[in-house]
């Protein structure tokens, strides 16, 4: 196994996780459950392909993809913040809605029930192994940037306060609702970038192409104990397990099914509290009056 090809492949696999997990961290730190990452990613992926297809420019695709994630995030925010719906129930609904909506528009715009036509993407130089893609570099820096936002800016301080003790934040004049709207919107846009990367990297949209990556990202958020950097490291760990599984295909030393289980097994171990106890933001998922 070539270590350089292992690392480059791992990073490419990790990018969608890194975007989505960063989005998950910011929403959950504000107290909103992020079961929706999968739906945000999927809508972002489709909107990116749509935008790229009609403009010919992947940059327009990035913008439309982010917009797609934002729209779904706002639906989620209005339902859970304004109408105080249960965040888990709405989250599941958002994910199902994203599958249905993308499938519907796939049929409408591209007359297909499985995939879009090929669209433009970034980079493509075979010698660069995907590292000539600006989205990849954005994905690499997104976690440190979000760590800065959460720990070093007034917005981040408010996000943390709102997710831990919304009454305290409200009592000093911080609008809990406004902070949560902003956090969910940011989360939708970040997660959408994960989907955008995925779609443009494959130069097309395929039905349900995110294939559970949003849920892996949520696991990384929990595994990383709601810290952007630790969550990013968890993303890399999961990506490494996946890379290992791909590279071990064909070798019969370990059945690949077992290797495929590694990320999920890690999540269960993490949630069971083996690797330090995960203490979520105190107000996570709580419906505010």
């Amino acid at each position, binding site marked *: 196994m070539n270590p350089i090809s292992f690392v480059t492949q791992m990073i490419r696999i990790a990018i969608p996780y890194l975007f989505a997990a960063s989005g998950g961290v910011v929403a959950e730190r504000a107290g909103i459950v992020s079961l929706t990452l999968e739906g945000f990613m999927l809508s972002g992926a489709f909107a990116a392909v749509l935008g790229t297809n009609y403009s010919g420019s992947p940059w327009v695709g990035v913008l439309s993809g982010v917009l797609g994630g934002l729209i779904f995030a706002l639906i989620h925010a209005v339902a859970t913040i304004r109408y105080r719906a249960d965040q888990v129930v709405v989250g599941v609904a958002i994910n199902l809605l994203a599958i249905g909506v993308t499938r519907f528009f796939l049929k409408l715009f591209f007359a297909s029930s499985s995939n879009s036509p090929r669209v433009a993407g970034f980079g493509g130089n075979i010698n660069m192994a995907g590292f000539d893609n600006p989205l990849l570099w954005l994905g690499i820096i997104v976690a440190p940037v979000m760590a800065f936002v959460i720990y070093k800016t007034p917005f981040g301080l408010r996000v*943390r306060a709102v997710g831990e003790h919304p009454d305290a934040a409200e009592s000093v004049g911080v609008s809990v609702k406004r902070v949560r709207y902003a956090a969910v919107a940011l989360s939708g846009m970040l997660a959408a970038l994960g989907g955008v990367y995925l779609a443009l990297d494959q130069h097309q949209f395929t039905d349900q192409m995110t294939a559970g990556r949003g849920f892996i990202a949520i696991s990384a958020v929990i595994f990383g104990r709601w810290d952007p950097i630790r969550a990013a490291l968890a993303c890399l760990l999961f990506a490494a397990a996946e890379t290992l599984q791909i590279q071990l295909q064909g070798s019969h030393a370990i059945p690949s099914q077992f290797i495929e289980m590694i990320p999920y097994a890690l999540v269960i171990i993490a949630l069971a509290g083996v690797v330090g106890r995960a203490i979520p933001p105190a107000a996570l998922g709580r419906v505010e009056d």
Partner: protein
Amino acid sequence: MISGAAPKSASVVPAIRMDGIDKSFGAIRANRGASVEVMPGEIHALVGENGAGKSTLMRILGGLMKPDSGHVEVNGRDVTGWSTNEAIAAGIGIVHQHFMLVPTLSVAENLVLGAEPKTRGIVLDYKHAADDVRKLSNETGLVIAPERLISDLSVGEAQRVEILKVLFRGARILVLDEPTAVLSPPEVRELWTVLRRLRDKGDTIVLITHRLDEVVEISNTITVMRAGQTVARVKTSATTPAEIARLMVGREVSLSAGKRVQPSGRPTGPPDKGLEARSLIVMGSRGIRVIDGVSFTVRPGEIFGIAGVEGNGQTELIEALAGLRPVFAGEILIDGADITRRSVAQRHDAGLSHIPEDRQRRGLILEYTVANNLILGVQKHFSSRGIIDSTRVMENAMQEISSFDIRPPNPVLTARSLSGGNQQKVVVAREMGREFSVLLASQPTRGVDVGAIEFIHQQLLDARAQGKAILLVSAELNEVLALSDRVAVMYRGKFAVVMPAAEASEEVLGEYMIGTKKGNTA
């Protein structure tokens, strides 16, 4: 002196003037034409029983809710129905009873939240924030390190941060809601010093409390509330605790928390009966010893009181004794029988009764009727072949309602619809209405009005006279002192001292409560 509207002072504009305030929550009228007038530079006590409408009135002042009718003036300006931010901007600072601090943030972060200093446009300026906190600390004498996490602070320190927080926002009118409820006596004295210092530099302070000794000690003027109305406004120097109590309750009340039936130190029941704990060790949720080698006995006919600042292991001790928390090491005996590994139900059968500290969480099922709450845990005595006999349940309810004076006397109301005091009476009725030899009474009068306190205290004393062994845990030091034969002080999971109540005083116990003194625990 007794009037709806407060008298108008001729020359000085009141710092706060609230006039004819009405506020309803559904069918409950929290404020009914309440009027308060607070002069600048005074400490004004707002007293009344729980549910009298004090907090509602102050929440209206702070812009947290809007009055249905009535006027609010601050420094002569009509500010009726203003917002939280407007109130903060006008210098109103409310120190809430339940701390409004984010436990995972530092002191400085909590202080600047909502008004953060910035550098380069978007970056939070931590250094600036910490410097501001230190400066304010020095000015006020409220010393606290800005970088400490709130979750690492003691309750007294957290309260210091609360006060700093409102001062940081430029508050000149401070409202403190039951500030001493969670403090030890030395911390209370420290708070008084701070409040006097603030008053002397011209700040106005409103103190919400139901503790009369505090009112008399610290305030200049008193407004008494009862059932949503302001019933009196008096100069502190011109009144007495007895008069204030009468105004609060609307009738004469006995202020000493129950009389001793017998002097302490009298011979108690046989030593092998009652409750005994031997070298008890209990682990907390974080894997540390929250109870670290505690031994004691409570004999029949004795009340053994445990005092201490909350969070020193009292909750866990009671839970371990009641069977709600596993015992790591040591033994628990009831009437000589080892029950350490017994279930809650088996302990009940062995004669253990338990009045839990949190009636809403552990004591009652709020959605159940009073009648059903009264048979929780003893339901098998009210059923035959697995079916509950509702006639007997109702008979039992009517009997307990009358003997424990539960109001309103309606067994089919849900527990939720009762006042705190009456909810507590339901718990007390259930736990003391059945056969028992040992009673764990944890915060038995917390959040209960003066009348119900009197009643519950009498129940405890009666049970003691009947030869029950009673373990009393209370945050109210005077309650522990008045009822107990012997008292212990819990400090960091151990008994700092055990002594006859006759030799104890608030001052003496206070020293042990904050750990400055250690003593004999035999």
